[in-house]
């Protein structure tokens, strides 16, 4: 049985999640406890040693991140629950930690639990949380690192090390400055969204490039760019104007 802890400052949210978990996952999950405050949450984590925590991002005037910072050791998985915290969601995404939007959809919850079960053996939560906490230390700084799911597990990447991303249908190949490449089980669109606050630009349906890695731009209908690694990539003519605007803004 998987021990579950729900931390949320609103009782009805706890109740709602409890109710969603009960009928379908009775044989798999056990709600070991609930907490309404960060302090209670820390206490319950230490005493109950849960396997999975459903953690609200905004807990009164504190955050779920504060709770995590209060812990010296992390040996559990986390699924964040949030209503609408754009910044937090972005940070969570960078850490490749799962999250659910409130009100929680039954189907989304099931998908999240399935994902947790699959990744459970990897025990990567501590690393992911470390990155999350790093990235959320200041709201002004954009995350410097990203965790990406690969076919074999997860990979920690410095965002500035990424030269470009190329779409391979439902996968994305990430090309790094050290000539390594990674195939990631995420669409290019997801990466585009993820890296939207970084100097990355989708110049083509299949290409997302690091604007800091452009060596030269050749004029043409859309033109093309040559990157520091020597690859030449066509720029979609529909993206040309916006691309040049972004370049000028650098």
């Amino acid at each position: 049985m998987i021990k579950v802890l729900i931390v949320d400052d609103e009782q009805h949210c706890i109740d709602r999640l409890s109710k969603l978990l009960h009928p379908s996952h009775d044989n798999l999950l056990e709600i070991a406890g609930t907490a309404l405050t960060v302090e209670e949450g820390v206490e319950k984590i230490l005493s109950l040693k849960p396997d999975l925590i459903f953690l609200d991002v905004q807990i009164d005037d504190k955050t779920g991140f504060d709770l995590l910072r209060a812990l010296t050791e992390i040996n559990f998985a986390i699924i964040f629950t949030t209503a609408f915290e754009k910044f937090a969601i972005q940070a969570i995404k960078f850490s490749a930690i799962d999250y659910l939007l409130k009100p929680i959809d039954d189907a989304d919850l099931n998908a999240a639990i399935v994902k947790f079960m699959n990744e459970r053996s990897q025990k990567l939560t501590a690393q992911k949380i470390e990155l999350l906490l790093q990235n959320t230390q200041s709201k002004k700084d954009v995350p410097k690192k990203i965790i990406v799911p690969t076919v074999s597990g997860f990979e920690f990447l410095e965002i500035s090390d990424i030269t470009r991303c190329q779409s391979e249908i439902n996968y994305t190949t990430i090309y790094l400055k050290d000539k390594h490449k990674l195939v990631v089980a995420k669409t290019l669109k997801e990466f585009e969204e993820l890296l939207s606050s970084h100097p990355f630009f989708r110049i083509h349906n299949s290409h997302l490039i690091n604007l800091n890695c452009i060596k030269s731009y050749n004029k043409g209908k859309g033109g093309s760019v040559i990157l520091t690694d020597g690859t030449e990539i066509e720029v979609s003519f529909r993206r040309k104007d916006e691309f040049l605007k972004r370049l000028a803004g650098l």
Partner: protein
Amino acid sequence: MTKIFFLLFLSILTLSGNAQNAKDIDSFRNVLIQYKTWDSNRVTTLLNFANIIIYNDPDSCMKYSQEAMQISQKIKWQKGIALSFREIGYAYYISSNNLQAMDYYLKALKAGETMNNNYFNATIYNNIANIYADLKDYKKALEYYTKYLSIAEKVDSKTDEMNGFINLGDIYTEMNNLPLGLDYFNKALTIANALGNIRISAAILNNLGEINIKQGNYDTAFSNFKKSLDLAEVTANRNVKATALNGLGEIYLKQKNYKQAEDYGKRSLQLSKEVGDISWQANALTTLSKTYEKQNDFAKALDAYKEAVILRDSTLNDAKKQEITRLEMEYNFDKREAVIKADNDKKQALAAAEINKQKIIRNASIGIGTLLVLGAIAGIFLYKRRKDTIEKKKEAEFNTQVAYTELKALRAQMNPHFIYNSLNSINDYIDKHETELATSYTTKFAKLMRMILENSEQKAVPLDNDLKALELYMQLESMRMQNKFTYEIKVDDDIDQENTLIPPLILQPFVENSIWHGISKKQGVGKIMIHIHREGSMINCIVEDNGIGMKESAETKNKKEMQPKKSFGMKITNARIDILNKTKKTNAAITLLHLEEGTKIEIKLPEELAF
């Protein structure tokens, strides 16, 4: 003594030397009597005649000259006018009216300008010089004589050269420069002899004699006077003769030959009386007085002296008269000069004024031109600024319109009616203890709201994304209405849903219309068909329902309304399409079709790809 010589130089017209005798005078008079036609011939004749009689009959000379003047003016003969002026000038001069003489000489010079005749000018220079000499203004006299002489030499007129020499000789004598005086007189004499002009030769000899006496050279003086006297006898010139006689008398006096001196003095006096020359009478009387005195005939000497003094007084009066004339002339010159100066000043002032005027005009032109250019620039600038302002205003208005429309679109999508209905239906589920449905409905509603809010930030969203939102909307409405309708979404395979962009939820208002006005009032289950297909370069989005149709809907709603009222959703969609067309220069359009059963909306959008 000088006056005699001046009178000699006047015969400048083309008269031969022999024209001076009485016979010629008679023949001239006859010509003038017989030839009365007013023409240039008569003018010439009159003037020639006037010139001949000038010494003997100055009054007639004046008369004839003035007649010549009148005729010349009448026939507008410029040369005649000039010559007439000069002749009148001579006549005045002979009558000792220097002022009038000068005036006429100047008039003659002016009238003669058009003739461009140097020689004519020369004669006048000579006569002007004569007047200056009379006024003892030797400097000016020399200046004019020199002018005269140089022209005479140029035109090679021996007579005038001679006249020039005589006059210069006379001036130098007056200035007591006796050697130069002798020199010039001798030059003149050579020419006079060569020309055979006895009268002038005689006069020159007299002058030479006078100088000889002054130099104490009595023998030469005597010889000269004697020669002069002989020649004067030939020409019957009493003036010259009187001078010569007096000169001889003086020499006899000096030589103590009183008898002879008395005799010559008497003869000179007699002649001088005949001629009416006071100066020479006085001279003769002085010689006689001295002679009587030497002969110890004191009574006679005193008488002669007294007479001489009286005559001298009268000559002194003459001198005074001359002085007055001089002053008068100076005054007149000054006045004339003042007038000329005033005239000049006026002219200059006018010229200056004209220049000023021109300057002002020029400056004004430049100023106006500059102003015009500046005005034009300012105009263009202002026009551009105005245009820019208008454009900016238009742009701002447009942007406001865009923002307003976007807000309205969002409001249309998040129609309060829809929101409250949704909440109401959730409430209804709870009332009926249909918790599963309530949960499902709520989460879908939350998802839809999230999507609407997120997508409303974008101008265009991928088609697949938008259709997901639309589907959520239809699911919610279908649930709320207890499955009153079904829906179908069909996208043709040749459309790349991820890469095709459409304005967010552009179809939602039409779906809403179909549900609320078409299907809700329909008996039985309705159906909404969403079909996206390509039509050339356009993406055609069709929303079709099998409801009661808009006409019927409108009738049911309000029977008085003939035209179906456009819904808020329709209006807002039209506005969005307009903005799209304006910003992207496209030709998106909405068509509304009333079907047998239900309504069909076609929204044709230009295909827009993300990449």
